[in-house]
């Protein structure tokens, strides 16, 4: 969190303890989205646009309340609606706030080839630095959550910043501030995790949601946006939340073993032909060799 910049750890010529030292328990931030208390009012969508300076885009009507099919380069926060019919025939309107998950092990960052186009801060925020983005779109392929979006005119990719500009000066993200039901929370990762687990327990024991649980997928090292779900066994129901997201295998192979094999191969090849030249030299054809072919027929 922002206190890292204000917390003192040493003071010159100072008698006694350093005041405030060690007060911060944790710098890892986290946004908690409790889908069970979301009412789909979209105040967070509006707050996101307002804070980040985007105007309203055209909506796409597809027989649900959802604003558009997926987040857009200038629409980073989208409530996904799903009319879910349960086994007993009753209906449930599932609503999930979709945005960047701020993965601890971000696939977008792993895939990006441009120096400093994507950075990860110590507090867990994964942020795009558009000035350095070359618009290759690799991040869109590396992300398991379909989050980075391309803006054709500027040839840059944009996504939720977790309001890095607000968080770094000690404010909570804009969406959190706007939420009227208190289904959005912001704090340290451990606090949010604890709050989420408490809520999930409550849902299991008091509300009859046996499968209620917390979504903090280990496949991407955990995320800095976590969900409470009534049915944590089927996250796909919540607007296609992946069950066990990881950085895709082909991206890991490409950025891992292939890189080493390829680099070794290129260097081996270049050195190899040089050594061949040192050992065997060129094929020189003597001009008086004229009509007598050197080879066997």
């Amino acid at each position: 969190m922002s206190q890292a910049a204000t917390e003192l750890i040493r003071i010159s010529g100072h008698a006694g303890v350093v005041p405030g030292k060690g007060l911060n328990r944790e710098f890892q931030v986290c946004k908690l989205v409790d889908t069970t208390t979301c009412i789909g009012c979209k105040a967070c969508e509006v707050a996101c646009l307002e804070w980040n300076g985007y105007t309203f885009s055209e909506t796409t009507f597809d027989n649900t309340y959802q604003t558009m099919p997926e987040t857009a380069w200038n629409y980073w926060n989208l409530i996904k609606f799903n009319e879910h019919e349960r086994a007993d025939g009753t209906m449930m309107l599932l609503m999930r706030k979709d945005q960047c998950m701020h993965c601890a092990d971000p696939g977008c960052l792993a895939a990006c080839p441009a120096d400093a186009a994507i950075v990860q801060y110590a507090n867990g925020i994964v942020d795009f630095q558009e000035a350095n983005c070359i618009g290759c779109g690799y991040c869109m392929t590396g992300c398991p959550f379909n989050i980075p979006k391309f803006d054709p005119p500027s040839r840059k990719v944009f996504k939720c910043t977790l309001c890095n500009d607000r968080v770094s000066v000690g404010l909570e993200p804009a969406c959190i501030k706007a939420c009227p039901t208190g289904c959005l929370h912001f704090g340290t990762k451990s606090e949010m995790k604890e709050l989420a687990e408490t809520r999930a327990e409550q849902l299991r024991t008091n509300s009859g949601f046996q499968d209620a649980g917390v979504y903090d997928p280990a496949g991407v090292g955990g995320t800095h946006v976590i969900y409470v779900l009534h049915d944590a066994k089927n996250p796909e129901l919540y607007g296609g939340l992946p069950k066990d997201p990881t950085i895709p295998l082909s991206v890991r192979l490409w950025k891992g073993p292939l890189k080493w094999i390829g680099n070794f191969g290129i260097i081996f090849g270049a050195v190899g032909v040089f050594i061949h030249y040192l050992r065997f030299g060129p094929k020189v054809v003597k001009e008086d060799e004229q009509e007598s072919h050197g080879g066997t027929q």
Partner: protein
Amino acid sequence: MSSEPYLLPNGRVLRYSFRERLVHWLAGVSYVYLLLTGLAFWSPWLFWIAVILGGPTISRELHPWFGLVFVVGVSLMYSMWHRQMKETPADKAWWASIGHYIRNEDDQIPSADRFNPGQKLLFWGFFWNGILLLLSGLILWLPQHISWNLRFLRLAAVFVHPVCALATIALFIIHVYMGTAMERGAFGSVIRGDVSRAWANHHHHTWYEQLLRNSAERK
């Protein structure tokens, strides 16, 4: 094939016509640009190449366009050469004596036609990898138009593209080495177009014999 005569009045042999040389360099220059910009995005240690070539954004912008130029070059090569590049039963014997070829024991190698089997491998390697580079490159070019449901195409493309690029790089290293340092007299054939009679006879004996026969018939 061109209508230019192969045995030149100056006593040399025309190996590549003007059209062939032009196409060679169309493919060659575009390939080198693709290689340099591609390598810049392949490794952070080589990102500086993109900076030198006008900036990474421009390199990203132009790489696919040069890819199209390269594909045009390779297609023209295919139309000019694919018949002469066909594998023949005699190629087996040539490959069996590849050790002699590498050790410059040229009197131990079966005689070659216009293109020896190694050159055929280079050609077909570039041809097939070129097709895969084009297909994967088109996906990498416009990933925003490949929907989330078809994401496997993007995932395949980011892997296939560098794999095929690496395959062509292996061929390219050997090709450049042989064309400049190893085979003396070869480089001129793609610049001025001609080689000496001795060179033609030595490296492409079967082809040279045929030329002599043809010119004798014409007289």
